[in-house]
């Protein structure tokens, strides 16, 4: 029987392979009392379990390739220290001795007590993260159970090139092992497109679907499946012709990737002599390396939300290291760092805000940052400190008003002064730009441009707000239309305001990285496009072969005419053939 499960594609790639299910299985906690003569052997069992858990993590760290993130490495190091912690080991052993109870029971009691002590501390900044202790203790419990002893190492086969791993959720340790073993594709039941696992998969270009409900129940071990990231579907029980179709599709896209590489070295100028710039979007270090490989001149958008995904907030130094690593990876090419763009559907739980009645219109983007006070200061300080190592620009998300820019500038100025007093030479001219992604910002763009050094258009949000369409709402998403005259009018308005104020305008939403719409932007005079590095080669080819004058002509006619519903749509008219 054939079956199609849907979820959300993290990348648009295709993977074909056999299902391997990762099921940690719920561990029960046996509770029993020991006879006097059993205490010694129980203590031995406890120490051996800790030892094996610790050795597993040590091995994993030693084998870890450099592509794995600093965050994952830090997490694993922290877990390792917990497994060597005398308070945990000795405390558990003491319970075994004094209460005559088994190791599992004693361990859980001791861990609970430590969790309670951390909760009482009340300072979440200095405390240990709940999940770190849980995960580390989980390793020991598995060892004690002598059950799938170690989830990651023993359950994951060594060769995964033709394997699609299905799991409830994937953590940093699993992702590390899976990526190293070159997994073909990933399917998780939970987790969103901005989870650690998803960001890492995107960065490493591993096809992945998240939010596939009941995948573990519905997909059988060893079953051959097709993962189509573009349509967000896993196809099981497909017939041979469908497999052949997808194999062909996968090979064609690989061939095309190789073919497109030859355009990368060419100067970025259209057929009729219009220069354009292609920039990269990046989160993690591998993204920056990919950006360099495809020859970007700058990073148009470095998102910082991933730093806030954890249970604990990133301190200034953690952020500074991440930004500095990015700056160094780009070797002198400028990086635009966007300050925390949380809120809406991605409000980190840790910030302790409850969702407002309408998150899309609520506390998000710069509004959230300005209300965070010290946390925003930490981020700005970290960015400014990193700017000493190479060119950096700051990008403020979700603007609606001029005074928001002034408030942010005041904070940036204050941080700069503080750092100067601490002996750090921060560039006084460090450019500050704003995201134009709300109707208010787009309509009032002249005033905003007067206070900013550059503009960046977030087309995803802008289109969503202008058309009042949530693209994830299946009942209305057929109305999502980037060629809607209202959208084009605003894009044109932003471009013109940028030109008047000498503010460079970059487009960094999905429209920039989509072959179907890049020429539309060219036709609007928007020639700085920032996109994921994987999209760049195809966009470059499309623009090299385009005529800017023709594109402008077509867009102008479209805007002037009342035939927006003409048989041939705008995008078809702009496309090469």
């Amino acid at each position, binding site marked *: 029987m054939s079956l199609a499960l849907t979820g959300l594609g993290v990348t648009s790639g295709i993977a074909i392979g056999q299902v391997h299910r990762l099921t940690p299985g719920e561990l029960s906690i046996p509770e029993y009392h020991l006879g006097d003569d059993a205490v010694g052997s129980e203590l031995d069992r406890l120490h051996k379990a800790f030892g094996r858990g610790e050795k597993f993590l040590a091995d994993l760290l030693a084998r870890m390739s450099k592509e794995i993130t600093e965050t994952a490495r*830090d997490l694993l190091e922290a877990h390792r220290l917990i497994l*060597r912690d005398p308070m945990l080991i000795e405390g558990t052993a003491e319970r075994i001795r004094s209460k005559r109870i088994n190791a599992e029971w004693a361990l859980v009691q001791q861990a609970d007590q430590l969790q309670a002590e951390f909760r009482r501390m009340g300072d979440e900044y200095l405390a*240990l993260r709940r999940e770190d*202790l849980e995960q580390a203790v989980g390793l020991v419990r598995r060892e004690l159970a002598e059950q799938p002893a170690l989830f990651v190492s023993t359950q994951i086969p060594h060769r995964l090139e033709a394997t699609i791993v299905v799991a409830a959720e994937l953590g940093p340790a699993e992702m590390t092992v899976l990526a190293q073993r070159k997994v073909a594709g990933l399917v998780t039941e939970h987790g969103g497109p901005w989870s650690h696992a998803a960001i890492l998969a995107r960065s490493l270009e591993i096809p992945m679907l998240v939010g596939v409900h009941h995948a573990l129940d519905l997909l059988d071990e060893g079953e051959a499946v097709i993962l189509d990231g573009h349509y967000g579907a896993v196809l099981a029980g497909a017939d041979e012709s469908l497999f052949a179709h997808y194999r062909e599709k996968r090979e064609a896209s690989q061939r095309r990737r190789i073919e497109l590489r030859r355009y990368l070295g060419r100067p970025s100028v259209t057929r009729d002599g219009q220069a354009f710039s292609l920039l990269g979007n990046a989160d993690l270090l591998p993204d920056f390396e990919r950006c360099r490989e495809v020859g970007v001149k700058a990073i148009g958008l470095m998102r910082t939300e991933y730093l806030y995904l954890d249970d604990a907030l990133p301190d200034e*130094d*953690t952020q*500074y290291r991440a930004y500095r690593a990015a700056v160094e990876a780009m070797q002198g090419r400028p990086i635009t760092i966007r300050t925390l763009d949380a809120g809406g559907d991605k409000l980190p739980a840790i910030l302790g805000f409850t969702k407002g009645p309408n998150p899309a219109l609520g506390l998000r983007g710069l509004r959230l940052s300005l209300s965070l006070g010290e946390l925003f200061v930490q981020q700005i300080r970290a960015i400014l400190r990193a700017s000493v190592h190479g060119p950096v620009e700051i990008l403020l998300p979700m603007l609606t008003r001029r005074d928001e820019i002034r408030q942010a500038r005041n904070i940036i100025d204050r941080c700069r002064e503080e750092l100067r007093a601490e002996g750090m030479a921060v560039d006084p001219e460090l450019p500050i730009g704003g995201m134009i992604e709300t109707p208010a910002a787009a309509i009032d763009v002249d005033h905003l441009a007067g206070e900013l050094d550059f503009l960046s258009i977030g087309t995803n949000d802008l289109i969503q707000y202008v058309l009042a369409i949530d693209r994830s709402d299946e009942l209305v998403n057929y109305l999502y239309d980037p060629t809607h005259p209202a959208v084009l009018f605003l894009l044109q308005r932003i471009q013109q305001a940028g030109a008047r104020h000498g503010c460079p305008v970059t487009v960094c939403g999905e429209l920039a990285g989509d072959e179907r719409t890049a020429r539309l932007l060219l036709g609007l005079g928007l020639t700085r496009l920032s996109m994921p590095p994987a999209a760049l080669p195809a966009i470059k080819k499309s623009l090299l072969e385009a005529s800017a004058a023709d594109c402008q002509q077509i867009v102008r006619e479209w805007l002037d005419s009342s035939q927006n519903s003409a048989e041939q749509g705008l995008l078809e008219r702009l496309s090469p053939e």
Partner: protein
Amino acid sequence: MISRPLTLSNRLGLHARAASKLVQTTARFDSAAWLSHGDKRVNAKSIMGVLLLGAPCGSELIAEFDGEDEAQALEALEALVNDRFGEEQ
């Protein structure tokens, strides 16, 4: 047995990363190690103990070591604290 007062001068105090470095340092030596802050005294080889001190920047700590290599251990810890745990300021 030797002991010495130390002042935390890194901006963030004994947060997770600093505590990790501290424990990695004390664990290199055979001597037993304790750290006190106010009325709390913990095993300085325990990451959770060190974190439970909840010591912010500016805290006065007392480090104690007992064992053959206590002098070297104290020296190493003092160097780490004075170097502000390698955090760039």
